[in-house]
């Protein structure tokens, strides 16, 4: 009897203290693939565009997923989400949502209040990708017809991953990373930017450069090449190309980055810190877009030297531009100082935005060419 009671008590606890659970059939869910948030109309705070996926019926025509756009207004994000029920017969389901696009207008006003619902609600993932639209609204991006994919949001999400990994020309920043950056002293946020690309026969969208933030407010843009330099400093390069040439500014040699690692070591003397940025890149000689056989004539060492020169110049120029134009620490220099010398950071942190504008940096790029894909003629003479 006692055992039965204990068993019943254990079962009761196991069954009741389990948190959320819910039985809902899969076809009753309106799967949301992407969300775009704009400034609201008609007195509402937000205008939210949802890209949902509509499915063909049954198994006979295995209907390819068709994107459906829903647009709602609301005073909070959740309000807008629930307003969607006015026109959709199914509840929106966010667990398979991959991207959130913010309009630049909203981004300039601060994004913290928008992030909150996505962080707090159970359905959206912490790995949502956030982008900023360079166009007038964010919704217009989702309203485009997908060109290479079936669903616009997934096309953008895949393009974002591919270009971040294989070209290195943009960041891809997930919700939890945004949250971390916003809550880390001495680092500022940058998000990938997206724009329309007009083309004959209907335009498409492309990921282009980054949006730069101060705290949670957007302050400006950097180009794709500058975004790549930013990625080098942040040690986020996993692939991509290094274009270089014999003369500074020339771009007729392509090196494919195999791997790259960056170490940032701060040195603090007095009130102005110096950042030592050591970039070590392994690359393959991928293309020489000239009639001259540069590699054979000058050797790998020299060609690597050209690449080092280019890389160093790119990084220096980018840091200089951000320092002068935006004054926001998207390179995470502040948090680097905080981590390696917390005592110094305590003195610097109160005046960090000004200190950042003045800090010195020393870039040391090291490029190693591992292989050259040279065709060797063996005999036959």
């Amino acid at each position, binding site marked *: 009897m006692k055992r039965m009671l204990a068993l019943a008590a254990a079962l009761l606890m196991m069954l009741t203290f389990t948190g959320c*659970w819910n039985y809902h*059939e*899969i*076809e009753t*869910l309106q799967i949301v693939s992407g969300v775009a948030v704009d400034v609201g109309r008609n007195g509402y705070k937000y205008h939210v565009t949802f890209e949902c996926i509509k*499915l063909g019926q*049954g198994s006979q025509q295995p209907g390819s*997923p068709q994107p459906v756009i829903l647009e709602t207004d609301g005073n909070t994000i959740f309000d807008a989400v629930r307003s969607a029920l006015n026109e959709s017969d199914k509840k929106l389901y966010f667990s*398979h949502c991959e991207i959130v696009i913010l309009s630049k207008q909203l981004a300039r006003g601060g994004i913290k209040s928008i992030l909150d619902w996505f962080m707090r609600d159970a359905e959206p993932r912490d790995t949502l990708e956030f982008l900023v639209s360079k166009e007038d609204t964010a919704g217009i991006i989702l309203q485009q017809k997908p060109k290479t994919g079936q669903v616009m949001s*997934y096309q953008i999400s895949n393009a974002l991953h591919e270009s971040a990994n294989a070209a290195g020309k943009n960041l891809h920043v997930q919700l939890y990373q945004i949250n971390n950056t916003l809550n880390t002293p001495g680092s500022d946020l940058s998000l990938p930017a997206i724009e329309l690309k007009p083309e004959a026969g209907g335009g498409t969208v492309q990921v282009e450069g980054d949006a730069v933030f101060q705290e949670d407010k957007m302050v400006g843009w950097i180009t794709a090449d500058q975004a790549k330099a930013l990625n080098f400093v942040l040690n986020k390069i996993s692939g991509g190309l290094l274009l270089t040439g014999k003369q500074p500014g020339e771009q007729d040699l392509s090196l494919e980055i195999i791997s790259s690692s960056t170490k940032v070591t701060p040195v603090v003397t007095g009130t102005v810190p110096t950042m030592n940025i050591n970039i070590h890149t392994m690359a393959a000689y991928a293309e020489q877009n000239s009639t001259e056989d540069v590699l054979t004539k000058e050797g790998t060492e020299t060609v690597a030297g050209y690449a080092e020169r280019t890389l160093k110049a790119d990084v220096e120029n980018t840091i200089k531009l951000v320092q002068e134009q935006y004054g926001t620490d998207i390179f995470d220099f502040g948090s680097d100082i905080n981590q390696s010398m917390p005592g110094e950071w305590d003195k610097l942190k109160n005046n960090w935005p000004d200190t950042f504008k003045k800090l010195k940096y020393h870039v040391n790029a090291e490029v190693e060419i591992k292989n050259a894909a040279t065709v060797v003629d063996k005999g036959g003479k």
Partner: protein
Amino acid sequence: MTNSDSFGTAKLPSNDLEANVKYLCNIFKDDDTLIKRFFSSAHEPSAKFCILFSDGMINNKLINEDIIRPVLEYSFQKDDPNLIQTVSESITLSNSVERTDQVEELVQGIVYGDTILLARGCQDALVLNTKGWAVRSIAEPESERVLRGPREGFNESLLMNLSMLRRKLRTPDLKMKYRAFGTRSKTKACLCYLDSLVNKSVLEELEKRLDRIKIDGTLDTNYIAELIKDSPFSAIKTVGNTERPDVVAGRLLEGRIALFLDGTPSVLTVPHLFIEHFQSDEDYYVHFVFSSIGRFLRIFAFVISLTFPAVYVALVTFHQEMIPTQLLLSISAARQGVPFPTALETVFMLVVFEMLRESGARMPGIMGQTLSIVGALVIGQAAVDAKLVSAPIIIVVGLAGITGLMVPRLKGYILIHRFCLLFCACILGLYGLLLGIVALLVGIFGMHSFGVPIVPDIHLKNPQEYKDIYFRFPWSLMKTRPGYLSENEVRQANGGKK
């Protein structure tokens, strides 16, 4: 005696031949198969005899040649006072002759194919071994086929079965102890074990449980298995059974005990471990890599068959976020327009599958084609087209069913517990499924077979004992027997413990 067919210590009524025959015939009243034949010696008419036997149970040639002919041709002394003794000692050619006046023994002899010989002036009778009836020839058991290895299987004759075992283990260490089951059926049985290997406590426990059986008839060893097994209500077998002599021999060599029963080819072995559901005799006849892979696949199939429908329902109705997006879209597309909830759909299709399986097992072979057409086309294709069920369910149920057939010895367990887990998943999702699996594991790990835990892994300390559980190691490495089964662990000379 409480039973009408037991005669206790009753004796034949007198030394009068006619009276004795009448007495025995009276016992077999209304049994027209009882044949009696009076005859007397040609040289000495006073030497009168009568034989009684049950028609169909005897070998006519034995009776004619070895009993009647020698008696007819023998020159009896005049008024021999002890005709029975003369016949028993000097006349009959039978190899097994027993002299008795116990009615019980005579009756048992008649019903078991022996011939009773009565003589004038004697109260005793002879029981002569003339058993002879048609038995099924030795064939490969349908349910335990192998590609390589011995192909003989037991048949329904106890003696023939014992001889098959004896031929595999030619040692006096092999003990064969007769007993009988069934107060009415009086079925003969035989307990076999290797005396120096057997775990004595298991043997003692088994004999104790066998002694307790008081059933009127045992037509198959499963009657006994259900009466002696641990956890009698569990679908897990704690008593093994096989129709193959090589399997029985192999198990005896590991220190197990076998119980043969007359009239059935199925032989019980104890103790029976959980892992034996996944072992096959062919594992030992093919390369150890293949047999290990095969064994591993069977365990994997068991897990899939048990949990796959439950996992599917849990994912599709509770945890859509765990399904890859593309899969989610195709499942969602397939579900469009299907009227029933996923849980009901799954239960429905599982029941349909079990019906198909059952009808396949019960119906005559020529109807097989009809079944496969109806099963595959009507229930599979047409039900999906008519949007009664969604296509993924067919795949889920099909996979669960096919993997279930890979472990036929656990089909009852799988059938019941698959529904239990499905129920858990339907009300609580993956969390419920996990609770259900924990409950099943606790159940399995807590079970014993004649004092041996059926999943002994957690008790094992010697790595030798893992060599034939989840994987079958090469014979060169299996130096000892499992210590929890046998008292003598050395399997290969100079190997393992001395």
